[in-house]
């Protein structure tokens, strides 16, 4: 009967076969295609691209299909693929000021240059199940909207925070041309820098970053954030080609950018001034971008001379070490692997301690 966890090889093969069968599901139902996922589950695709740190909607859609809709598993598939890709260069920083916006809102100004563009948002939908979607056949498709659809390449959509900055009301970011560190190529060292923190946050788990941001709103490291601006749209990715001597567009990516304006009462070193938090995420990922900017702001306490009140969102090591869902899920789930050698040693220890305790008790009686 000594068969515990034996026959591992056959078990693994059988498990994989079963998994493939389960993934396909009922053969009477048409198979889901990758283009369908890409087109119709676009927000899931966005999340997988953002947390997988790889902008490729087709591969993200494939990963979602392969992972049976488990997005963290899909992120993992993308990460494991991404890490094998060669790096042949870096792009120029993208110009979000030149974004072809499909959505752009400010919560701090009623109207502003560039306008408020509501765009495709769930914000004002009533969350009532639309049974028409469930019925066979599509609901009658609405007439394609005319003007802003797919975002017109507007010449320039200025950033809201720039208006405030003109009056010196908001803290200025120090421009830097330093090459940012690459989280995926160098081990994380603490204390870290803001570029590294932003990198970790943008690929961090949406749920984790959301909860941290929420905790700051509820008083654990309060930063009083206003959404100065939230914009979504396509930006061109430019790369310097040494042979040509100038930069060329190598593609377009969809981004969500969020800048928060935060109250700031001033400190020993700084007069009262608004401060900023920043979020930038692949695809249409508003919740993540807003969360990211709140957490970014909370993490800046040291730089802005604020007090550390022990809030989790202020704690760089806590945030950065636990934001990655591929790491978290791996370590969490590994406890289902066999641990019987360790457990055996614990068994022996407990037995010995108990027998000693019992003996001592009997001796006392």
């Amino acid at each position, binding site marked *: 009967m000594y068969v*515990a*966890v034996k026959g591992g090889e056959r078990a693994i093969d059988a498990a994989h076969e079963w998994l493939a069968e389960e993934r396909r599901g009922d053969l009477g139902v048409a198979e889901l295609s990758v283009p369908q996922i890409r087109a119709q589950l676009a927000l899931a695709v966005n999340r997988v691209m953002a947390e997988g740190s790889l902008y490729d909607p087709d591969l993200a859609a494939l990963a979602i299909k392969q992972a049976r809709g488990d997005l963290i598993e899909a992120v993992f598939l993308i990460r494991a693929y991404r890490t094998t890709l060669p790096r042949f260069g870096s792009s120029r920083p993208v110009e979000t000021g030149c974004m072809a916006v499909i959505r752009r809102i400010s919560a701090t100004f009623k109207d502003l240059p560039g306008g408020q563009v509501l765009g495709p948002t769930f914000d004002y939908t009533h969350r009532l199940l639309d049974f028409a979607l469930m019925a066979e056949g599509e609901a009658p498709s609405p007439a394609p909207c005319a003007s802003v659809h797919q975002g017109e390449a507007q010449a320039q959509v200025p950033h809201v925070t720039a208006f405030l900055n003109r009056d010196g009301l908001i803290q200025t970011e120090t421009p830097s041309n330093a090459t940012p560190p690459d989280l995926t190529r160098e081990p994380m060292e603490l204390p870290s820098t803001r570029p590294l923190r932003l990198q970790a946050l943008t690929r961090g788990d949406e749920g984790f970053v959301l909860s941290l941001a929420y905790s700051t709103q509820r008083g654990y490291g309060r930063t009083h954030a206003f959404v100065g601006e939230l914009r979504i749209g396509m930006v061109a990715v430019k790369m310097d080609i040494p042979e040509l001597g100038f930069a060329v567009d190598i593609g377009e990516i969809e981004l969500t950018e969020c800048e928060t304006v935060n109250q700031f009462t001033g400190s020993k070193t700084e007069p009262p001034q608004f401060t900023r938090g920043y979020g930038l995420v692949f695809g249409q990922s508003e919740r993540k971008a807003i969360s990211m900017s709140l957490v970014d702001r909370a993490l800046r306490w040291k730089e802005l001379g604020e007090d550390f009140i022990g809030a989790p969102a202020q704690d760089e090591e806590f945030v950065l070490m636990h934001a990655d869902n*591929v790491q978290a899920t791996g370590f969490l789930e*590994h406890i289902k*692997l066999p641990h*019987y*050698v360790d457990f055996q040693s614990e068994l022996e220890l407990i037995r010995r301690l108990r027998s000693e305790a019992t003996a001592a008790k009997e001796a006392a009686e």
Partner: protein
Amino acid sequence: MTDQAYNFAYLDEQTKRMIRRAILKGIAVPGYQVPFASREMPMPYGWGTGGVQVTAACLTPDDTLKVIDQGADDTTNAVSIRKFFQRTAGVAVTEATVDASIIQTRHRIPEAALTEGQILVYQVPIPEPLRFLEPRETETRKMHELEEYGLMHVKLYEDIARHGTIATSYAYPVKVEGRYVMDPSPIPKFDNPKLSDNPAIQLFGAGREQRIYALPPHTRVVSLDFDDHPFVASKADHDCDLCGAPESYLDEVITDDQGGRMFVCSDTDFCQSRRAAGHVGRLGMPKMAPPPHPSPTRGEGGVLMSAETSPPPGGEGLWVGGHLPEPEEAAQ
């Protein structure tokens, strides 16, 4: 994508070079945790990604690889990792400790003495021995820098004050060459003495935590203790029920719901070799019957069941998912 799309042993050469540098640094400073840019691997963190990366960086086409988990070659994860390297590196594999040039392990050191030229690669979940005393990496690195290990001794002392003994039975902390306190990975403390003065190179890889550390051959490794409470390597107070070995680390296997249990070597290769050499334990059979299954250790099950009066266990924990006992096996 075909397997040819990947480099030998999966990782690209640049990455291997980075890992080898970390390994060399680790060997130069025994017990020191070297940060390295761990990659995402095609298996999850916690499944041995650190060990797999170290193995990938060490493998050459001429190597012979052995992979064990809990001492056994045929546990699911050991099978999976061995398959991974067979597929991506095409190296020879073995279950015999003596034949292996690289052994990747989780939670055990093989019973058979290792020899010069062998590499033992450990999978490490939490490389920091001070982690559960101080959760902050910034703090623990400083403690190592300053050789400030008082906290650890206080913890061990508190154990003695409370339990009369040091209540750590695995991942028992050690001191390397009188300098760094090191986590030997979650091996039972029974294995700790084998860490010291070992002729093999011992490499430790922690993928998620991005750390590599090492023990070069013949490094002095001391398990932490006190003069009046010396370290004791402990194991179940039994001999192996299959091969009769009194000196090997044993797994306890529950055989029925009446409290029946047996003790068997956790190191399957060690047990197998002893039985092949004619050693017989309390429940073993003097001569091995022709195995009804290609896997020799599985065949053992059938033989034993006929020798024992207790019914075979039906609990699902004992049968691997997807593999149910064949009728004739169960019937025996």
